[in-house]
């Protein structure tokens, strides 16, 4: 217990203030309300090409969810103040998850153009 100041705190000796946490909490609750509200509105679609259409509602919903996740990861999980290794680890997790989804979709989306 000799060397003190901040040696037993989190990674970069940075303690996030409760006010930051409060701000993030309010933002998260706000985003939640936003996403519920948007689910009651038809946002239309984008006809990219014959048989390939992008509907905006799920895009917006996932975008909001990603925003919420980003806030939780960066602030509640302290990644903003963490080492490069931690950031790399988080990024690699997303990357491999996206590989699973996207490479599997190369099969499903190309099985019958237009009926996906």
């Amino acid at each position, binding site marked *: 217990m000799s060397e003190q100041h901040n040696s037993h705190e989190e990674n970069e000796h940075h303690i996030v203030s409760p006010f930051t946490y409060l701000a993030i909490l309010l933002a998260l609750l706000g985003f939640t309300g936003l996403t519920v509200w948007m689910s009651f509105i038809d946002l239309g679609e984008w006809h990219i090409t014959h048989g390939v259409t992008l509907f905006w509602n799920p895009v917006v919903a996932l975008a909001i969810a990603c925003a919420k996740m980003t806030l939780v990861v960066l602030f509640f999980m302290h990644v903003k103040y963490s080492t490069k290794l931690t950031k790399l680890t988080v990024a690699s997790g997303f990357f491999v998850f996206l*590989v699973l989804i996207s*490479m*599997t979709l190369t099969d499903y989306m190309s099985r019958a153009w237009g009926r996906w």
Partner: protein
Amino acid sequence: MSDDSNVNLPDQSTARIPKMNFLTKENGLLSWLLTGDHKRIATLYLISITFFFFIGGALAGLIRLELLTPQSDLMAADTYNKVFSMHGLIMVFFFLVPSVPATIGNFLMPMMIGAKDLALPKINLLSWYLYIVAGIMMLYTMAIGGVDTGWTFTTPLSTHYLNTHVISAGLAVFVAGFSSILTGLNFIVTIHKMRCPGMTWFRLPLFVWSHYAASILMVLGTPVLAITLVLVVLERTVHIGVFDPSLGGDPLLFQHLFWFYSHPAVYIMILPGFGVISEVISTFSRKRVFGYTAVAFSSVAIAVFGFFVWAHHMFIMGISNYAALVFSLLTMLVAVPSAIKIFNWAFTLYKGSITFETPMLYAIGFMGLFTIGGLTGVFLGSTGTDIHLTETYFVVAHFHFVMVGGMLMAFLSGIHFWWPKWTGRMYPEKLSQLAALVTFIGFNLTFFPQFIVGTLGMPRRYAAYPPEFQVLNVFSTAGATVLGVGYLLPVLYLTWSLKYGAVAGDNPWQATGLEWQTQSPPLTENFPVIPIMDHEAYDYEWLERQKQKEVASV
């Protein structure tokens, strides 16, 4: 010692095994069952995987016996299906996946980086217990009648058309998967956080690099297998329909999820073997590994690319042609890093001072056999030829060449190479060289005919086959008998050597690497004082200077 041997043993009349070492530190069953010492856990693993290897081997013997004759006359077709399924499950999940990492990797890795133990010793022990629980579950599955889906649990056969013990086998593999995940997790944390002062990434032995790459695959790939098995169990029990076309599901979804793990799994199995080969080739050529950076990065490249190629196991299963094209192209790419390694090892041998102790014999065998196996993988990765060759004995020969001719030989190479460090004793060299030769001959006799018979069209996973294939099958079975002898011999003479082998001393091979600078067997804490790494990997000049500094006799 004479020039054609690398071995440098202490004077046998005065040499003794050090009294205080990790084996003698504490006694009693509980000191082993509750140990945190990575070396003891590695020993527990070694005994366990040897046990499962011989069970898997016995099942292989039964397969080869059945295939002596074209008819399904030794056992019913259903029984044969169970035999090859259990053979695959046990060999893949209970031998190949943990073989080098959980035994040699566990034992050596902390020493190679200058640490006292892995980062998470209790997790290490938990990993072994999970392995044992999974093993018991799998043995139970065998005892109550086994599973006959093949080790791949392909749907809808496994979910809808069989009433064998799919759930029991699936749950056993689920538990074994977590054992693997915990080992990989432990290794990654250790390599990042526990290197001794001066041990930069590019001074690490290539053994550590390859385990790092394999661990990434273990951590990121195995959980997908876990959830896939959960879905299979749910499909069988509750009939949810996610793999059932009549309920709107897709059997191919299972295969996508299953092979997302199982392809990286083959790299999990082989990468640690690559690490062993790097160490052995370097030591027995007295030369640093050629192109260290290329070999290190190629390990990581294999790990990354390995995630992108899984559907090459599914070319004929109904995936779209466009997806097949993409995956085939990527499969060609993933072969490149493996080839880079073979070239680098070959250039390490060039102008080296080569000696042919047993580990080197296995390593050279590896290089040849793995190359053949790898090249035949390219045939299978090309969609056109794959249509003809898939689900035939060509595939069986391909993966046995890389896994048995490759991985198992690397495992035996590593066991022999580090046996003196592990036990303090040398194995009998002449007998072991004979065993290596017997293994090599037996292997080729067993599996080379399978390439031929596969190209001629003999399908895999069939108890009966057309009579024109019998001659080659008889050769294969004869080879299997020889191979069995080749594998039995090491068990016998290594056990013998525990009591009667020559005392090895710290560094009988005159190898570089921090593990060779400690006593044999090592102390529980590996190093009395954490070392400082001040030289590059495979630095034989540094080793010469060390020897000059050492006191010649007490």
